[in-house]
């Protein structure tokens, strides 16, 4: 059950922070609002993985939720050609993307022929009609305006 509102508060510096115990629900709640935000440890300043619950020094993790740029590269991808569920007719791709900020996550690349998928290609985050975070091939031309990243929270 994804909450409609992230469990966060603004700290004295105006940062959007929460304990890492709310990591999963908050990430999902931002996604539900078409926002891609990534967690950064407020103590070390390091971007942390979404599964992290402790700061590098072993103390409970508190994170700042940063708006992601939406830029990413294609770290790897696979093509499902055997159907596992009727709700996922084949073929479709599943991708491991690496955000510019360094975080890796699973997603899918949309709007491109599978033959054109290339590891290392530049991607841009977007949201599909089902509200899923997906990635498209980045605009090729220099100077092309960046797409804004859904709603600003």
């Amino acid at each position, binding site marked *: 059950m994804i909450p409609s509102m992230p469990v966060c508060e603004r700290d004295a510096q105006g940062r959007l922070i929460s304990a890492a115990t709310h990591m999963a629900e908050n990430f999902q709640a931002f996604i539900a609002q078409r926002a891609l935000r990534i967690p950064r440890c407020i103590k070390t300043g390091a971007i942390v993985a979404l599964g992290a619950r402790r700061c590098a020094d072993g103390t409970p993790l508190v994170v700042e939720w940063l708006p992601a740029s939406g830029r990413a590269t294609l770290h790897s*991808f696979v093509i499902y050609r055997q159907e596992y569920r009727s709700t996922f007719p084949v073929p479709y791709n*599943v991708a491991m993307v690496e955000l510019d900020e360094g975080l890796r996550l*699973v997603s899918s690349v949309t709007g491109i022929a599978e033959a054109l998928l290339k590891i290392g290609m530049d991607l841009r985050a977007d949201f599909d009609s089902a509200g899923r975070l997906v990635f498209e091939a980045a605009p090729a031309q220099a100077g092309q305006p960046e797409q804004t990243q859904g709603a600003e929270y």
Partner: protein
Amino acid sequence: MKRQATSAIVGLGFSQLSRQPIGSARTLALDAISAAITDAGLALKDIDGLLINQSGLAPPGSLSLRLQEDAGLGSLRLLSCVEAKGASVLQMVQQAALAIAAGMARNVVCVFADAPLVAEVAGSQSYGKASVLTGIEGWEAQYGMFGPVGAYALLARRYMDVFGVSERQLAGHALACRLWAQDNPQAFLRKPLTLDDYLTARKVVEPFRVLDCAFPINGGAAVVVSAASQARRQASDAARPAVYIHGMGQGHAAAPMLRTAGEDWPTPAALAAETLYRMAGIGPAEVSMFQIYDAFSYCAIAALEDFGLCDHGSGAAFIADGNTAPGGSLPVNTGGGQLSGGYLQGMTPLAEAVIQGRGDGGARQARNDLILVNGSGGRLEYHAALLLSPHAAI
């Protein structure tokens, strides 16, 4: 100076193995336990330890501590369920060896059994649950990333891109394992397999074809681990020679989900390898054969590199060049492995290691002085390894 082993595998037993439903994991485990104890030339009353591993993908409680009572075992000095995904079986043997060395127990049965194939359900569906990679429960399922196959295929795809590996080279492991399986009467897939057969086989999760994935079966297997001193004393009475344990290691680390955490290679198997080689006092050059946990063909590539048997990035070429096939310099998965032999998780490579160690390999018998065995699981976060030998001292 030679090192003496302190423990040995003295018994090996199987339940019936089948693609058809033949009973629950519980009943298959009992058959395997019984067979292993008989094979060891021991009686029920001689067993004072029982370690149990069920598939991590089976419903919780498929195997339980109840097996002690089910198997008719009396009081035990060692009993637990062991769970570490694909590293579990070798971890059971390690725990048995450690308990024996500490004087806690003398004859420990280690059992694995699974019944993943049920009527009317395709094998792939038995392994169709979505993995968790991103760190958020349910995240991967929304993209249709079903089965461990997806995670392993992601690893393989990037590896192939970074190191310039072709699908013809990826085919190498499946082809080599099938050659070995042809000489294993117990292997499930023994029909000759050509490169053309491989290339025209259906892709399941590209780059993997169905031939790159383990062949699920229903069944159980067990080994008996005993003190080496006892194994040597019983040598003349025992049905089959003991296979001694000379090295053990484990390695575990979370999958790298940040750029700063680096690539997915080497896997934590490198840590298991370091511990094992140090304990045994040997290096990779001395390994005679390697029984690899190859749920997916890529696992063999990674294992060869991480255990130092070939250069980093050259695992696929090493296999494709025939080095691991019959006649090659480093026999790998001499029973056909999990791709052609059948998927009994950690018991597939361990059982073949024991068979080879005993000299029971028949037409597929290879040089067995130092047998490396590994187990791996998750998406290659969890690893265990053993170094076995027919020699009590190495």
